[in-house]
């Protein structure tokens, strides 16, 4: 599943509106509970595990893509 698609369902926003720049600051639905939901969803979908710091610093869709890439997951 494409990363944009995952973010779109979890955040309930149209997929076309999402880019690597989409962030906690630019999306109203990306609040602290949605953030936890995003983390769980990424970990469950890609079988990865983020550190506490990574979770705290993942502020945008691009951040998520970079962190996943560093763990060997290309999305």
């Amino acid at each position, binding site marked *: 599943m494409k990363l944009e698609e995952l973010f779109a369902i979890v955040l*309930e926003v149209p997929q076309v509106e999402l880019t690597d720049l989409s962030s906690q600051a630019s999306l109203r639905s990306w609040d602290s509970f949605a953030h*936890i939901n995003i983390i*769980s*969803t990424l970990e469950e*979908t890609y079988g990865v595990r983020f*550190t*506490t710091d990574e*979770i705290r610093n993942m502020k945008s869709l691009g951040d998520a893509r970079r962190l996943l890439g560093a763990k060997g997951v290309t999305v």
Partner: protein
Amino acid sequence: MSLLETRLSWQKIARSGRAAELKVAVLATFTANPLTPYLGVALEDARFPAEIMIGPYDQIVQECISDDGETARFGPDLLIIWPRLEELWGGRPLPLTGEAALYTKDAIEVAEASLEAARRWRATLIFILPAIPEIRAIGVGDACSQTGVFATATVARETLRLRLAGRRGVLLLDMEEIIRHTGSAHAYNPRMLALARIPFSEEVFNLAGQRVAQLFGLSRQAARKVVVVDSDNTLWGGVVGEDGPDGVDLGDNGPGEAYRAFQSYLLELRRAGVLLALCSKNDEADVWEVFSRPEMRLRREDLSSWRIGWQPKSIGLREMADEFDLGLDSFVFIDDNPAEIAEVQASLPEVACIRMPDDPVDWMSAIQSTGVLDRLPPTQEDLNRTTHYEQERVRRELQTRATSPEDYLAGLGVKVRIFTPTQSDIPRLAQLVAKTNQFNLNCKRRGQAELAEICEDGNYWVRLVHTQDRFGDYGVVGGMIAKPDSDCVEIDTFMLSCRALGRGVEQAMAAYLFEEAARAGYSNIVAEVIEMPRNEPARRFFAASGCEVAGVASPLTRIEWPPHVERL
């Protein structure tokens, strides 16, 4: 359904705008928000569409004692209280040499406040017993201490259980069981605890949601009452038709031991009030010959019914349902043969089917993981049920010999006592209200708390009915609620357990109401029959007494106390 699918499914449900029938408030000592989707979906699946609110973080007592707090304003029907000892003990050193009472005090305060809130809000309370904290300053040595973490947490947990268990409207869920089931290595989420005060993994929230829904369901719906088992490769190893009665495996080294352990489990179910029955494709004589073997723990007299022959098992089950006068949704069917399971499941989807695993040693997890036999602790009535059906068999034999219905009834020696419930009778009243289907005027399902209030309200007449006859004591089998109005008495609730029907008890109940009404100066009694899927017996009775049209309040024609029924 995966965890993600469950969460997305809740998003969809929450967005659909469907009407919620249950308001659920969750108060925890931590951030409990991840529970919402799992609990929401589990309640939805159990047919309790819910609206869920998570109360403010770590303010259980404050929310419970306030009548203008967020929770009070929400007005929950179900209040879930979920404390952790980690937070309740916060700010104190860990138990090491201290007094257990010091570490129990806050937990009890939470319990008292939540009991009081549930009472005021007329909510069902589900209290989640906190698990034993994982932290041990002295590690393995903690077990050697009478005042260590494990010992102190155990005292706190059991003090809570003593305070809460068995109280009406209160259900307990044990976090220790949930963590044990998940495995403590997968139960916690230290990253989310540090970031957002979320202590548990999604897996634990999911399981907690399912358990809450299951527990709530047990309090609102009747538990399954009959277990029907196959014989070959279910009660013993091998096939009696091929291996012979002496050849089937009941030995104590190997699979036979597992079959015997399963038989012991069936006997435990029987003790808890479950009826046992046998449905087997065999020659009957062969089966009874195995039953006479000394290694058998299950005896023929433990069975309340049996069908041994070559007809489809679904037919046998249907016949038993008629015989017991129970719905098929009361049945559990256990068989090793997937074809038999498929046949029963296809013709009788209400029956819960469990397949005995190929290796019988796995019987326990195969059965217990389904949860279909889970039930709340048995009441006295449940415990009497097994003997009741045996009495019923003798009674039917007598009926076939009796010359006329009048002689039969006169010979039964029916005795009826009608009384006003006291505090201790309210759980039974609530059980009758929740579970009586066939002889029920309108199937009005009130919760225990509300019934308790009605009992105290002087504007209602509330009565319970105790019945016995020469074959046995049925216990409290019926109940009535009536409300005198300006010019007539209105029947609000009128129900009688199906096992006491057909003996004149229902006439006696109605006659009693007429007598009470006359004493209070009323000559009219009005009843409105509501058509429910299974209450035809009640509709028939009231139709014969003037209430012919369902949904219309009509006066009841006078009913006299039946001469064959003795008043107690």
